[in-house]
């Protein structure tokens, strides 16, 4: 577990963060700019000092009251927004800066980090010869070489264009799959959040306003993300079979089976899909003469107005929660209310992995 209770007062801003998150997987810290995301990350790294507080990562306590462990003695990997490689050293120099200072690193460990981020072709370059994405790869490798208890990533893709983002995303996926340490990932991008987050922590005005598993946070109607124009649900599923005649694959999730275009993922691999609330429609009876493939029986849990003409409907497919965004008129025609049985039609699905 990661336990944090930090209060930091800056000139015109107060961060007051109390939370507990799991110490594995990616926890995304999501919030608008100026909400205190970076300050929170800096506080965990010890770069901002709070006079009192409590911070525990796994079994290491980094702050207890005014007993404050300085940054260089915290085993952290910190990746700054703009990579921040040392300009007076080349790529190799940036990496050996860490290996010289970290005790007990085995050659195998260093090798595994280099392989994970595909560093070897870059080793003999100077930092000015790297693209934005390559810089971030070196910065992530450099952070991991500290053999950290936690990896902190501060909007690592915000300085990259779309092409570079797509270049670095697979590396972030492999961090996700192969590292045992918790990752705290700061971003204000919904795309990055939906692709990477296991756990989601929402921050606003220096306060943590919500914290929980990603789909729960996205679909809880008392949380802001369910009320944005692009509200979504995230589904973690598994490839179970393919339909080669139509180039489709079948995905199993806790609510049933999704049929999506085949993207070549092997059978049994985990896959994450995203359903936009706007792409979900409801019918009272199961439609048979329809072009839509993904139809599930569901239970209406809650209906709340959204803006002037729309409603957000929270639906339960078995144990799985899905959001739908409909017009008020449709809701009235269907006489939607909690407890009603309906059929959910999902018009389109985005495959994220």
């Amino acid at each position, binding site marked *: 577990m990661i336990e944090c209770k930090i209060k930091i007062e800056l000139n015109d801003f107060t961060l007051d963060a109390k939370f507990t998150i799991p110490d594995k997987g990616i926890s995304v810290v999501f919030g608008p700019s100026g909400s205190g995301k970076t300050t929170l990350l800096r506080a965990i790294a010890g770069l901002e000092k709070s006079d009192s507080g409590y911070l525990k990562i796994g079994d290491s306590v980094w702050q207890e009251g005014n007993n404050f462990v300085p*940054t*260089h003695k915290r085993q952290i990997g910190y990746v700054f927004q703009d990579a921040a490689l040392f*300009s*007076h050293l080349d790529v190799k120099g940036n990496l050996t*800066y*860490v290996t010289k*200072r970290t005790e007990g690193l085995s050659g195998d460990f260093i090798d595994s980090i280099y392989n994970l981020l595909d560093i070897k072709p870059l080793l003999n370059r100077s930092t000015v010869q790297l693209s934005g994405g390559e810089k971030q790869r070196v910065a992530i490798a*450099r*952070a991991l070489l500290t053999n950290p208890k936690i990896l902190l990533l501060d909007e690592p893709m915000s300085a990259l264009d779309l092409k570079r983002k797509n270049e670095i995303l697979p590396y972030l996926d492999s961090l996700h799959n192969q590292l045992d340490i918790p990752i705290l990932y700061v971003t204000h991008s919904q795309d990055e959040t939906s692709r990477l987050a296991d756990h989601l922590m929402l921050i606003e005005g220096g306060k943590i306003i919500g914290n929980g598993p990603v789909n729960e946070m996205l679909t809880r109607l008392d949380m802001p993300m369910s009320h944005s124009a692009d509200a979504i649900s995230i589904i973690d599923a598994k490839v179970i079979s393919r339909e080669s005649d139509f180039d489709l694959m079948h995905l199993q999730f806790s609510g049933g089976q999704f049929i999506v275009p085949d993207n070549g993922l092997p059978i049994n691999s985990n896959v994450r899909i995203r359903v936009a609330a706007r792409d979900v429609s409801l019918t009272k009876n199961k439609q048979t003469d329809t072009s839509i493939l993904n139809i599930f029986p569901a239970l209406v849990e809650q209906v709340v107005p959204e803006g002037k003409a729309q409603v957000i409907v929270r639906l339960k497919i078995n144990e799985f929660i899905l959001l739908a965004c409909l017009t008020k008129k449709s809701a009235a025609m269907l006489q939607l209310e909690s407890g009603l049985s309906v059929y959910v039609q999902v018009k389109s699905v985005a495959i994220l992995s």
Partner: protein
Amino acid sequence: MLSELDISAIIITIKLALISTSILIVIGTPLAWWLSQTRVKFKVVFEAIIALPLILPPTVLGFYLLMTLGKNGPIGRLLESFGGSSIAFTFSGLVVGSVIYSLPFVVQPLQNSFASIGKQPMEVAATLGASKLDRFFTVAIPLARSGFITAAVLGFAHTVGEFGVVLMIGGNIPGETGVLSIAIYDHVEAMEYGQAHLLAGGLLITSFLMLIFVYLFNRHFSIMRGSEK
């Protein structure tokens, strides 16, 4: 051609400049670092004190140094009470005078380049496990490289060129405190324009070459760092 006295003046001058510059770098580095990092309110007072030699007439500075370091001055007396002797009119006196006189020429470029590094590289080094002292030597100093070159060359050249302070505190004793700039003055006084030309021309060309070196190096350096953005 150069007389024996001229040659000894050149040697004394170079020795003085080398020793003063080394001392200046050693004391100027921590001072400049502190000035670049501190947020204390009276920082400007320190900056003003260090900058004083830039605007004071050298004779004023030389006069006060003489009063302090001389036989009857506080530091002169202190030295004598420990069995030493006053350092006025000695080579050591010249070194003390030069260090004070050239201090701003070393501290200011260092302070500027330390300030231009910004907080981030030091924070990065801290997250990578480097202690305060470690990151000062392995990050701050290498990144301030251009500032060190500028500081050393300016400190050196300025010490070579000083006149008023060394005359007051050194007294132009041949072979001991007689430096190049005073030798030129002496030649002119004695109407030996040929020798004056030789020394003055030599100094002019050397100073010019040193500045060319500084600008070339800094340009190269800023190109290396600039293209990264």
